[in-house]
């Protein structure tokens, strides 16, 4: 399985023109528009780095990623290759076309100063958090707190046990693993390179990620 997935990932990255190649430092936010037909590769450079991600329709941000619609439509909580990332209107926004990791989360949401106060105690509220990243980066696109919804956590694994217990399972990802998304509509992508240091989602050591947007050759010719 790994060999064929790796081949498809390299083909996707190698094909066509590189539109963007950004290094996102540890703990930092990022945003950008990925046009319909373009590919976004998210590279976990250091391994075990959760990448919190929200999607908005570029020309009408009231339509945005919906974890519940994505989960209900595929009847599974696991995001991996072939998962269609759907909007709150049920429409495909992006599709996972290649995945070297195999499992990603969309039920665990983003860390915030406020939820950190519940999970780890009030002494942690000064720490960096994904919601802060989403708010400051979203403000560049006129998005506010009301626009934040349940997100995707690339490279994070949150299984549900038989009695409903959630876990955050470490060690799913490894250095250099990639997940590749194809935009099915012009999509504003909002990312928080997760700064959480109180649980194993980042191996207790947040690291940089690489984001590459490519445009296939056939697309260029149009």
């Amino acid at each position, binding site marked *: 399985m790994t060999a064929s997935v790796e081949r498809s990932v390299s083909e996707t990255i190698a094909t066509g023109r590189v539109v963007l190649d950004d290094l996102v430092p540890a703990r930092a936010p990022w945003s950008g528009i990925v046009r319909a037909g373009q590919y976004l590769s998210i590279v976990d450079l250091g391994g075990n780095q959760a990448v919190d991600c929200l999607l908005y329709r570029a020309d009408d941000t009231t339509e945005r990623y919906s974890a*519940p619609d994505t989960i209900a439509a595929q009847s599974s909580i696991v995001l991996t290759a072939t998962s269609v990332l759907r909007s*709150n209107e049920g429409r495909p926004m992006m599709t996972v076309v290649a995945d070297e990791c195999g499992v990603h989360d969309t039920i665990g*949401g983003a860390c915030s100063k406020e*939820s950190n106060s*519940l999970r780890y105690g009030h002494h942690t509220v000064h720490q960096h958090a994904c919601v802060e990243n989403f708010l400051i980066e979203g403000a560049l696109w006129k998005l506010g707190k009301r626009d934040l919804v*349940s997100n995707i956590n690339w490279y994070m694994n949150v299984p549900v046990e*038989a*009695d*409903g*217990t959630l876990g955050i399972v470490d060690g799913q990802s490894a250095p250099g693993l990639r997940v590749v998304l194809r935009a099915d509509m012009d999509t504003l992508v909002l990312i928080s390179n997760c700064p959480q240091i109180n649980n194993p989602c980042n191996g207790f050591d947040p690291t940089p990620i690489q984001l590459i947007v490519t445009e296939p050759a056939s697309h260029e010719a149009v």
Partner: protein
Amino acid sequence: MPTVPANSWSRPPLDVDASRLVWAETIAGGNYTSLTVARGTTLELTDLTGDACAHVLLYNADLPSERLNVADTTKVQWQAYLGQDALLLSDLGRVLATVVSDTSGQHDALCGTSTLSHNVARYGDGSPQGPSPAGRELFTLAAAKHGLERRDVPPSLSFFQGVRVSGTGALRFVGSAGPGKSVRLLAELPLTVLIVDTAHPLDPRTEYTSSDLQLLCWRGSASSPADARWSASPEAERAYRNSESYLVARGLPGLTA
């Protein structure tokens, strides 16, 4: 249909005197309601005939940008299946409401509600006043009654139609626990509550099925340190304390009032 005034409702719960009722309504299948309640109000939802699905959203009535966060609710409690004593948490680390009673045990915090496109594909129509209304359309109407917009409709919870997750992550719809099941939500802050009664998005029946949902609300007290649930976990106690702290700073009646 609402009963006005609520204290004229003829069938109050056995443990509630009718004089305490502040809201009494039967929501027909495929419909919605919305209301604003004081802290300490109990909201009892009853699936009268076993085919209701109560999709619920909660907002801080004084600060509607603070609302139910389903992801934080499940993550902070390490529990995907919400039931008795579950806290319904906001995106600001506070308890909005507590599930103080649950005779069903079959609910869902993962799938949200239905969309227009889903119900059109599934039943041929999803318009809010059509024969098979989509939950998101009904939530949009309910939100509008409180000055809230379409973008203010986040992922919702639903009661009475259960979903379970297998070891591989696949979902299994387990549906209803039967007629007459109820849940009671205790408001821990002043709340704006949106309730939509429509078929669960994973309901496998080809015919749109949605039956009556009863809503009764009565005055009472919010949770306090005297309740075992207050200190059932460090996370729960911090969440109740955060709500209390907000009320005190805001000058609203809390424990110390």
